[in-house]
């Protein structure tokens, strides 16, 4: 599903965010990428949805080498990968339903499809009663669930979550992780970027640990070891 072959990312003038990283994530896996701040976790996540391009090496998603992806092809890739961020990235002037619908609107989905999909994904994240509310009327955990619902709108095969619990308290963080587990159980590959020890240890799934841009451990049922 996701394969990185000897990937490095060097920012000018000579800052290496990732160095010769190789990894393989199989379809349906739930992988946590952990490490301290500045170890290259977010850079790795950005490579997966082509927000960044590797300085060298190959990034292959579902057989598609996106290392040198054309600018015009990036939207197609992003419709197959759901992305969730720490700061939710919701539009404050749109309601919950409109925020989710926005992802489908800009991709050219029909009104009929939007009317079908939006309630479905809001139900998955347990916000089916909050469609008419605005982000400011929701708690942090609920806002992150809206972001996840939006990420699910295209029915992606991969969800990349970059520090999704970073702005949340423990209870809300657990809710979000449980939601990601539920999505993973439906067959979606989840790549979770985090430095939350409790979350990683609770998950008991594969853990890839980064340090100074290198993978220092890759364990099937790992724990947070830094």
């Amino acid at each position, binding site marked *: 599903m996701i394969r990185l072959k000897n990937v490095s990312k060097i920012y000018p003038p000579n800052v290496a965010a990732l160095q010769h990283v190789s990894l393989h994530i199989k379809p349906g896996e739930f992988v946590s990428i952990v490490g301290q701040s500045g170890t290259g976790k977010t850079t790795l996540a950005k490579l997966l949805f082509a927000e960044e391009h590797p300085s060298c090496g190959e990034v292959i998603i579902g057989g598609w080498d996106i290392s040198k992806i054309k600018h015009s092809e990036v939207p197609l890739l992003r419709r197959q990968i759901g992305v969730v961020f720490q700061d939710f990235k919701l*539009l404050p002037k749109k309601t919950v339903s409109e925020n989710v619908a926005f992802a489908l609107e800009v991709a*050219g989905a029909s009104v009929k499809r939007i009317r079908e999909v939006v309630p479905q994904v809001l139900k998955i994240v347990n916000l089916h009663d909050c469609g008419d509310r605005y982000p400011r009327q929701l708690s942090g955990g609920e806002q992150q669930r809206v972001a996840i619902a939006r990420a699910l709108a295209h029915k992606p095969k991969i969800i990349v979550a970059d520090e999704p619990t970073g702005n949340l308290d423990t209870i809300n963080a657990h809710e979000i992780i449980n939601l990601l587990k539920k999505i993973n159980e439906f067959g979606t590959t989840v790549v979770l970027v985090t430095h939350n020890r409790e979350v990683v240890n609770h998950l008991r799934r594969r853990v890839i640990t980064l340090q100074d841009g290198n993978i220092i451990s890759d364990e099937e049922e790992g724990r947070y070891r830094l």
Partner: protein
Amino acid sequence: MRLLLRIIKFAFQHFFRNFWLSLVTVSMLTLTFLTVDVLLGLNLATDAAINNVEKRVDVSVTFKIGTEEAEVKNAASYLRSLPEVEDVGFVTPDEALTDFKTKHANNPTVLASLDEVGGNPFGYELIVRARSADNYPMILEALDHPSFRDFIEAKDFTSHETVLASLSDVTVKARWFGFTLLAIFLAIAVLIVFNTVRVTIFVHREEISIMRLVGAAGWFIRAPYLVEAFIFSLTALIISGLVVVPAVLIFNPLFDAYFETSSQLQNFFIGQAFWVFGLEFVGAALVCMASTAFAMRRYLKV
């Protein structure tokens, strides 16, 4: 079609969410349109004035006293045969005397001087009207024909020449002033459109980043800004039309009375409205879109 409707929807959202910026942009474009319309009106007025003066211009050729009627008629038929000549009027000495008396009926001193001269002091006269003002020098040259040049006392064209020259001088100056004003307004409009798009991009930066993340194509993100430029031009055109059309209807009778035309102003601005306003709109929309494209190239990274 679906995407086009969504692009139009986003363009209207940009337009109304930055209402004050949009208002300034539309105002400037409206001023530009009005300047173009005033310039076109001015052009019509100067054309009408030139036509009017040209219609009144003629060369009056006075023959020496004692010249035979046959000689004068010979000159008249020669002039009529010239393609540049529209019409040749024939005035006998008696008619000239009667005209003179009628004209100065209230001036006994002038009439008394006639008595002192004794007899008819007027010779034959030809009034030559050319097809165009440019033909007069050629007609004056033709009057030097050897068969009748010795009979000619005077050729009077000078005063009209001065009027025509000063009229075309005023026309050129007015046009230059108009074009300069137009260029200034257009430059300001371009800068304002550029700034509006820049600010709109800044205001929508969050929305743009989310659009990119959820898979919106680059052209889909850019297109609403171009459509917005189109909306600016269309709104400005409608507002300027709402000013120009009533103004034309009000000024048309005055224009006709002054320049002796027949609904020329109305026929131009209302009869040919599709072309006049259509071309203005196409020009403004292209300029606005070019300005928008430049602003996007600089500030919108998608």
